[in-house]
């Protein structure tokens, strides 16, 4: 089952900064469908964002620096485990394996890092729409 429109709208609202809309849509999501569809969409978006940011110049030092910067931005983000965050980023474009990381922990870390990557990218509305469209396309491939 591909990514649903509701799932797509939920993530789009959040990344566009429409937080109230996001919370409402999130509450209305079917939790069974979200188990696959929404998690695939978030992971696909995260992978594309990491690929754009680090794949060409992603030495470990840059990843460490980015994660620390994310954690330093607020008390909420400081709760992210730095090693987990570094590993999930490295897993996208290196041979880093993250099978030992709990799926929920991995998802939560990816979601926070995705927000930071989008914030740093400074996409305008068309660019953000294009990015999300690509993420949905990739997620649909995964779910097919």
């Amino acid at each position: 089952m591909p990514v649903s429109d509701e799932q797509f709208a939920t993530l789009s609202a959040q990344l566009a900064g429409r937080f109230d809309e996001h919370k409402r849509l999130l509450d209305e999501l079917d939790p069974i469908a979200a188990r696959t569809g929404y998690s695939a969409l978030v992971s696909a978006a995260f992978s594309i964002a990491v690929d754009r940011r680090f794949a060409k110049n992603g030495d470990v030092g840059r990843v460490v620096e980015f994660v620390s910067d994310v954690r330093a931005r607020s008390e909420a983000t400081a709760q992210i485990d730095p090693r987990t965050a570094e590993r999930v980023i490295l897993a996208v474009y290196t041979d880093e394996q993250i099978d030992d990381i709990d799926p929920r922990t991995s998802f939560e870390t990816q979601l926070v890092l995705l927000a930071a990557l989008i914030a740093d990218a400074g996409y305008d509305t068309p660019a953000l729409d294009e990015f999300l469209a690509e993420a949905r396309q990739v997620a649909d491939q995964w779910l097919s």
Partner: protein
Amino acid sequence: MSERYSQSTETGSITTSETSTTTLNEREPAPDSADRHQDTSTAERRDYGQDHDAAIEARLDEADLPTRAESRAATWGPDATDEDDPDFGDEYDSDLQALLATHDDGLPSRAESRAATWGPDATDEDNEPALGPESGDAAIEARLDEADLPTRAESRAATWGPAATSDETDAELAGEYDGDLSAVAAGRDGPAEQDSGVTGPSADPPASESASVNSEQSFEARRGTGPPTTVNAETQWHAEHELPVAATQDQPGAALHTQKDSAPASDHELERPGQPEKRDDLPASGDLALWRAMYQEFRETQASDTGRESGSNVVGDKPDRSPGDISDLPPTGEQLLEAESDEATRPEKFRNKVYRAFDDVTDAAKDQGEAVQNLLERPPPAGHPEVAVPSRPEIVPASSQQGPIDAGTMVETFLVVGVLGYEIARWLRHKVNSHGRS
């Protein structure tokens, strides 16, 4: 040109007395053997003294010795008959056996060997050493039993001092002792080394006692006592009691003190190997100048030792990489094609790595809502609040959770983390240099 071989009883070596390269073939034959061939008449017959010996030598190398007829044919040609065979005498073919039969021990005397080789008229005037009765094996054994080898007690006293006594640590040297000094060294508990001059309560061995003769103990038993007498064994013994600098650098936690580095042991009982003496001689509270001076000394010492700089390739070191390591080479055409195909499946690769379905996805998303909002908000939040540092922190006893750190782990930690200091220094130097160039 005649050639004589001299034999030395001291070294057992055999050396040529002359530098000529005369070979066996060129050796002057015994007069008798030469005369036996004087009646040869055919032109085809070669000089007996040269070709005959060569032919015999060649055939002796083969598995099967030729018959007399074959030898004759080889020597005189296929048409040769036995009528021209020289008369070697009935005893020729069994000459050796005849010689052996005349001696009870199966070995010819010196004169007999000489005569068999050079003829009955050969004498010993040509550099044969006068071995005399002392060259016999019995005489040699007798000399080895004399005073120049110490007894076991003498060796012990010379090593550990006159007060040293025999105890269970003395290795049992039974008749089957085969000179395995490593077995002796393994059973010893004495101090590390001797060349530092620290040998026990008394450093000077009693010279007079070492000269005494002990005919009661056999040579085999005495050969294993005392300090090693062979070069290889001595090297092994010292190696077991004193680690080289390279080994201590890799395993400083396991290194033994060398006696050179330790304080004089006159007031301390020497410890057994494996239990370094206590370092209570170190200054417990050196002043600033003292340790700074020591630090400068270390720096100067290390600075002069250029071959040990980190990263320098010293002759004999293993190369940094295997010759088969081609990771630095550009990709081949096949690898480039594979990379292109990898691009098409990257989303699939992402999926395999980062995507995993799980329950409570919406709950997880809600839990991170605040963090995500903090990151995406415009303007961003102020960050972490400022916290004041206490002016007088209280002291709490060490945490019971931590537990002791064993010396080996500690050393390993220091060595590993010590590299951090080096790496940081190198990074900073690079930063300073690149900043200077910009």
